[in-house]
């Protein structure tokens, strides 16, 4: 009888903390109805715990919103996965491979005049230096038009990809450069934005119909880059958050990714 009472006392204590349900709860309640001492103990314990339960229920952190948009966190996770995928020892290999790759690209520019002309600041004038008759001797007009179109689309894809990198850098930055003034380091992002904005005319004007489907994304990217271009390297957190919100509201990173894929075919 005493053991049964002790077992039920324990259950009554759990009841006061809201930790029993179903059949167990029914038994505890039945015991309370028959045991005045247990009922008094339950009520006292319930009153004591009420303060804790109320404090927990009204803690504002229960409804706290994450400080970064989900898209930005996903980009951070992807970058962390990339970093984890390249072992530290392989960096030295890149140091050897990169100059070699640069040399190959330089060689390609020398050997392929049409590519070289394409990347000069005045492409219209530059293209005129290729005699049409000479070009058509090698390729048909249709084939040339296709190559032109593909080059324009590749260039637009590369532009969007670089712009996406700049926006992710800004959106995902968490490095304090002035903790006291709550400022974040956005590194070279403003300078890169300015360079990209200069390139934009070439991509849009020269791309013509080939990049018409990307015009909406390119326009939104331009607006975002203009915001970033105006930032200093060490920028107030509030200003970074404004850019983040704008990028998130326009779903810009996702649209850049989709459009880049479309342009690359």
């Amino acid at each position, binding site marked *: 009888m005493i053991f049964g009472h002790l077992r039920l006392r324990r259950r009554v204590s759990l009841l006061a903390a809201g*930790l029993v349900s179903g059949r167990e709860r029914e038994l505890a309640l039945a015991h309370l109805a028959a045991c005045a001492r247990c009922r008094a103990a339950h009520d006292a314990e319930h009153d004591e715990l009420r303060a*804790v339960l109320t404090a*927990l229920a*009204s803690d504002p952190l*229960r409804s*706290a*919103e994450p400080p970064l948009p989900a898209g930005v*966190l996903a980009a951070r*996770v992807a970058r*962390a996965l990339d970093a984890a995928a390249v072992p530290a020892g392989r960096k030295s290999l890149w140091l050897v491979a990169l100059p070699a790759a640069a040399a190959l690209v330089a060689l390609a520019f020398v050997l392929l005049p049409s590519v070289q002309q394409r990347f000069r600041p005045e492409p219209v004038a530059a293209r005129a230096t290729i005699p049409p008759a000479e070009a058509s001797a090698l390729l048909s007009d249709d084939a040339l038009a296709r190559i032109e179109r593909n080059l324009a689309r590749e260039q637009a894809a590369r532009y969007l990809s670089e712009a996406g990198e700049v926006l992710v850098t800004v959106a995902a930055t968490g490095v304090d450069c002035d903790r006291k003034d709550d400022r974040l380091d956005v590194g070279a992002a403003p300078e890169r934005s300015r360079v990209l904005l200069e390139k934009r005319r070439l991509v849009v004007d020269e791309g013509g119909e080939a990049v018409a489907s990307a015009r909406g994304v390119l326009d939104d990217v331009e607006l975002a880059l203009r915001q970033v271009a105006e930032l200093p390297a060490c920028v107030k957190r509030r200003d970074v958050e404004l850019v983040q919100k704008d990028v998130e509201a326009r779903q810009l990173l996702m649209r850049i990714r989709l459009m880049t894929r479309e342009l690359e075919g």
Partner: protein
Amino acid sequence: MGRLAQGDREALTPLVERHYRRLYRIALGYLRQRDDALDVVQEAFVKAFQAAGRWDGSADAGPWLSRITVNLAIDRWRRNRRRGQTFSPLAEGDHLEVLADRGPSPDRGVLRREASDRLGAALQELPERQRAVVVLRHYQELSLEEIATTLGMSLGTVKSSLHRALHRMRATLAGSES
């Protein structure tokens, strides 16, 4: 999760969108530091992606991700403790963000902030697993069975942990008020 298990990066974004807020609140409830909580959630998704191949795919990903997050929050807590950085009340801005739409009175805001800080201190006094049980129960409103599944504990252990935790917190809060 099936796509994630095959290393499909595109599956990452929907997974983050679905679970980010919930995991952030678990980590924040546990650590009560915004930057640490964000780091923990990011690390949880990285670990989930890396371990997705070993996930059996038969269960809901939610408890699995919650468990990873809790374990990482505990690791972070231990690391902070070793460095002497345990509990510090949240910065002004952190509270204001979540209190902004709760009422116009500044006094009320201050009182709530103080209450939240006291609560945070009481939570930090709890043993690691007890604190995890309280956070899952009162910040995520999980059932006792769900907590048992998430933390790999028996139902009885969850109940006794929560019971002890609430009494311990009551004592701490009573002490801080006197």
